């Protein structure tokens, strides 16, 4: 492949990534913002491909596009009475500072890195290399990450099961049925608890 193809791909993908990122800032709708984020992530995956890092690229799509964005959508949809728009916040100044610092750090690393030619086996042996470095060199961060995720998982389950008692009403009444007790007492129904039923006027609205 010629340099021309690479350059074309790089500039197109960079435009896609940055364009998507800017649109996240501009769009007022959180769902739209997530969709733009997905576009940005796809651009980054493409950039990885131009770097011959196909494993990372595919994992980027798998994790960020397929899972993280979906989780974000899930979180937006499940957050009760959340502002569904990209509203103004009071902490935009500190947030901007943090972003600036992160950007400086990233650029410093980017400039500092030796972007030499790809070593042999990088394309075919990538998964193996990553696996080996995770298990050998970076075992401690890897394990810390694993423990952290497990803790998060347990915490999420604990939070989700908190209101168990008023959740599966159906299962409880069913169990009572099976135990031979009539869970629906006719007396309860004879004096219906919802005495005043709301009406929508009988018109098709």
């Amino acid at each position, binding site marked *: 492949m010629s340099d021309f193809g690479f350059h074309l791909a790089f500039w197109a993908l960079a435009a896609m990534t940055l364009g998507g990122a800017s649109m996240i800032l501009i769009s007022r709708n959180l769902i739209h913002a997530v969709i733009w984020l997905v576009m940005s992530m796809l651009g980054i995956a493409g950039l990885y491909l131009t770097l011959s890092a196909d494993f990372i690229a595919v994992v980027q799509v798998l994790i960020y596009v397929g899972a993280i964005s979906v989780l974000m959508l899930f979180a937006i949809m499940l957050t009760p009475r959340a502002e569904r728009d990209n509203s103004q916040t009071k902490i935009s100044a500190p947030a901007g500072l943090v972003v600036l610092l992160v950007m400086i750090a990233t650029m410093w690393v980017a400039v500092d890195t030796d972007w030499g030619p790809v070593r042999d086996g990088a394309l075919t042996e990538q998964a193996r290399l990553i696996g080996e470095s995770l298990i050998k060199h970076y075992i401690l961060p890897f394990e810390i990450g694993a423990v952290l995720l497990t803790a998060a998982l347990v915490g999420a389950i604990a939070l989700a099961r908190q209101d168990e008692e008023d959740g599966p009403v159906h299962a409880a009444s069913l169990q009572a049925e099976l135990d031979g007790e009539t869970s629906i007492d006719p007396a309860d129904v*004879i*004096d219906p608890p*919802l*005495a*005043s*039923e709301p*009406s929508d006027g009988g*018109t098709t609205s």
Partner: protein
Amino acid sequence: MTTQYDATAAMEIVNASAPGAACVEDGVLYLEPALVAEAIESLRDSEESDLIFLCSLTAVDQERHFEVVYHLQSLDLNHILAIKARLTDREDPTLPSLTGVFHGAHLQEREVYDLFGITFEGHPDLRRMFLWEGFPGYPLRKDFLQMPGQIRAGLPGFPHESTENAWPVPGSVPQRPQHPNDPQPPSVLAVAEDGEESS
């Protein structure tokens, strides 16, 4: 075979718990409208009558009064009893609701309210059921949509018969079952317009 439950026996049961609530006319048990719920509850709970199943609840417009008709059935003893209550106030017919006694009365009372305009006091959700809120009039009343010349609804006679057999109606035109070519009274059109509007 289902037997008819003796109305006199039922009257005694009712009057034991709600004195003066029931009387028997021509072998039919009539209830005092204000005490219908208590009376029927006593019939439901009594071991002898055991009328635990509400077969049917409906009303008849007897022109001078409304008659609400209950058919109650005992499943184990297999007898049935028709009970009636007369409502003489045509302007605002009111009756206690039976929903506290029979959950199955819920929809049937709503139906009677919808089509006859009889109010059931204590009904938790008394709204029109088949027709929309604001529908003018109550269709199953005999005076609903009176024909020009004050002809009441109904079939006065068989088509081949002379008008002698028809109901005596002053200044009537010969009536026949509804036909699309018959001129429609204006109120019918008004109903249709209203329906379009509120949908």
